[in-house]
């Protein structure tokens, strides 16, 4: 095994309203190590490259298999999951920063509750009659299922919003992840019954019309969700809804 060191620069912040600062760390390089294993190494010997003892770095992670979405951060300037960021595939020194579009909790850990609040705004769920046994669900062709499946893999990681020029800390733009969830639920035979409510929610300020069509969301999505296609589809659905509203309301 190789025994060289690598350098990692981490942007740290002690609390939401305190000033960020940078620290540099040396960690032993091991074959196939990823950013998470480097952060774990720092936990086990929390000192900077100058030998100063520091508080261990705080970050968020759970599954480490790129399904939970927790360990998203900005690595060498690009937003992605830390668990799939392999050290030998990155340029050095490595820089780690928290996502910039969400409030920092501490160090690399940010607060993404805005994304979950957005899901409430657009009622991203299916209104069922009850959990009791009333038999089979709706019959659905496999090709439509497959289209929904791709959308249902969204892990609310926030990459698309970090990359989006329209989404900022101080506006109320809903963003690609939310629009895509509207598409997911509108495409379900039962979910469709509440399509109008969802479309009304994305028709106002911060809604679909504010999308600048920069298309970077789709480039950074780790799950390759066709986000721009979702935006176009929801754009179309809202246009129809507007016409319906003009004619019948």
């Amino acid at each position: 095994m190789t025994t060289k060191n690598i350098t990692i620069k981490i942007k740290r912040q002690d609390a939401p309203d305190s000033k960020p600062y940078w620290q540099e760390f040396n960690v032993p390089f091991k074959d196939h190590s990823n950013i998470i294993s480097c952060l774990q190494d720092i936990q086990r010997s929390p000192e900077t490259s100058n030998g100063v003892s520091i508080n261990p770095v705080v970050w968020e992670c759970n599954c480490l298999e790129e399904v939970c979405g927790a360990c998203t951060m900005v690595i060498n300037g690009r937003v992605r999951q830390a668990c799939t960021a392999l050290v030998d595939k990155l340029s050095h020194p490595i820089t780690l920063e928290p996502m910039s579009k969400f409030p920092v909790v501490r160090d690399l850990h940010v607060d993404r509750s805005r994304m979950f609040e957005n899901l409430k705004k657009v009622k991203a769920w299916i209104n069922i009659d009850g959990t009791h046994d009333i038999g089979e669900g709706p019959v659905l062709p496999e090709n439509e299922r497959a289209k929904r499946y791709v959308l249902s893999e969204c892990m609310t990681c926030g990459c698309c919003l970090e990359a989006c020029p329209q989404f900022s800390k101080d506006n109320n733009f809903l963003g690609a992840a939310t629009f895509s969830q509207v598409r997911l639920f509108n495409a379900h035979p039962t979910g469709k019954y509440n399509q109008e409510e969802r479309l009304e929610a994305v028709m106002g300020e911060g809604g679909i019309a504010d999308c600048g069509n920069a298309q970077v969301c789709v480039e950074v999505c780790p799950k390759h969700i066709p986000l721009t296609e979702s935006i176009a589809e929801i754009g179309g659905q809202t246009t129809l809804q507007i016409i319906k509203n003009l004619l019948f309301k």
Partner: protein
Amino acid sequence: MEKRPNSFVVIGGGLAGLACTMKLCEAKAKVTLVSYQAVKRSHSVCAQGGINAAINSKGEGDSPEIHFYDTVKGGDFLANQPLVRDMCYQAPAIIHLMDRLGVAFNRSPEGHLEFRRFGGTLYSRTAFAGATTGQQLLYALDEQVRRYEHDGQVTKLEWHEYLEAVIDHDGVCKGAVLHDLRTGEIFTVGGDAVVLATGGPSQVYGRSTGSTVCTGAAATSAYLQGAKYGNPEFIQIHPTAIPGHDKLRLMSESARGEGGRIWVPKKPGDSRPPREVPENERYYFLEENYPLFGNLVPRDVASREIYDVVFNKKMGIVGEPMVYLDLTHHPKEYLDNRLGGIIDIYEKFTGDDPRNVPMKIFPAVHYSMGGLWTDFKDDGHGLIDHQSPRNQMTSIPGLYAAGEADFQYHGANRLGANSLLSCIYTGLMMGPGLIQYAKNQKKVFENVEPQVFEKAAHKWKDRFSKIKSMQGSENPYDLHRELGDTMMENVLIVRDNTKLNKALSMIDDIETRSHDIRCLDTTHWANPTPSFINQLNCMIHLSRIIAMGALMRNEFRGAHYKPEFDLKQPSDFDPHEYVDYMEQKNYGEVPEESFPDGHLAYMKRFEANNERWLKTTIAHYDEGKPNISYEPVDTSIVPPRPRKYD
């Protein structure tokens, strides 16, 4: 006067916790849902394969009764049968419900649910949503709970940790002590009952297929308060995982199914790249030792053999605990076609392309069949009385457990695609009983003396301030790794009493050293270190009962393999002989010549072993010490019989 709504505290936002919350909300209750992180990131999200239900959509003659039989047999008859049976009977309704919630299950040509075959059964019984079934099921339940949150019935406390149950003067649980992981504030919340749906304990082994949050700390905390813990020693190992410095990632068994060959260099410590090791210097140990099955030996056999090569023969790749799983003899097109998804996962996490380089794999801790002991009430007809408040209640009244945190359903080993089912099943099934419990309780939590809550909160404020003042010499994260390594080396696949004894004294040593920890971070805001030190303490206690349970159980059952106590099943034994034997026994002495040579003696050994060991291990913490005792298993529906292991 408006009726007082029932109110519950559910700890854990995985499948079990969310299903339970949804069911309670439907019954008009209020729920405080507590989660260590955003619920959508719970470990249930990781499950890939699918969820079982005997819907018999392919006319194969499958039925819930057969599903039940497969499950108890797979678990070596160690599970209480009415619960398993009820779960299997509820399974079709559960799948239909999840389908109605919008889970993108794969469909048949006619647009109905598609099913596939999974390990341990002959039927197409597994519904699946691509390769991310756990994620899809979790999201569907999360969406329903968000709906109730939107309507004001659910209060979500994410980034909060459960520390302990609040227990009143009558010994009844009336709430929970919680820790706000951002502000560091410690406070209590009251409820008619508390549900622990806090997942498995895989972090006790350090690196595993489990998520980093799966420390088992919440369940251990209940154990330390006096709740019984069932079958701690039953830990399921998956034979092929991708070793990583941060965790071990699952590599589906289909890699072996498609002709993957397992080998190590014959020369221990050989550091040549794998493709430079000539064919005659490779040790294809499964092919050599099992000429008939080769690389397709069952899960447990594969795990044991890999372990033997690495730890006893010291032949792991360059001295590391790994072996090669080689697919490079297949053409690229074949691999892309048959194993594309798996190859991508390996490449994503290691940077190596398995089309060109053999994969490095090792068995990994995957699931815990054990957990908090829970009660049940059968309906007298081999199913469960769904209205009973006893269902899923721990031995502390008012404290319930569900999902991987409880010990029921899987016995000595879990069948693939049964874990998602057991999590959703327990969450839903316990709902009506919880409501009954809330209606019947003698004293509601609002009337409990406030001092009970104050005392509980004070105890934990005190404990955390003590943790923060620890200025010793041990690093808690280092100590955790040492605990994990100890468990991996001594309490994993092949269990040996000398090594288990050694592990127990090493655990004692780690515990002693844990009093000399340095709290690396003493700040107040979003500081995970004190919390981790507390979890480490729980993991030390839990590792002790896992090792003790394993040491004391002198037999070979399911995932618990002790070669010293192998019953030596004759290779030509047919499990049906045992049914004949039991029948003949009813008519008196069974003559030796009724069965082939040695078979009767084996069956008598099997019978005697069951007499002694077909029992639930109960770990009970009393006066600062773990006590191990045994409890009978309900085998009233299917009499136990030998399994055949090849």
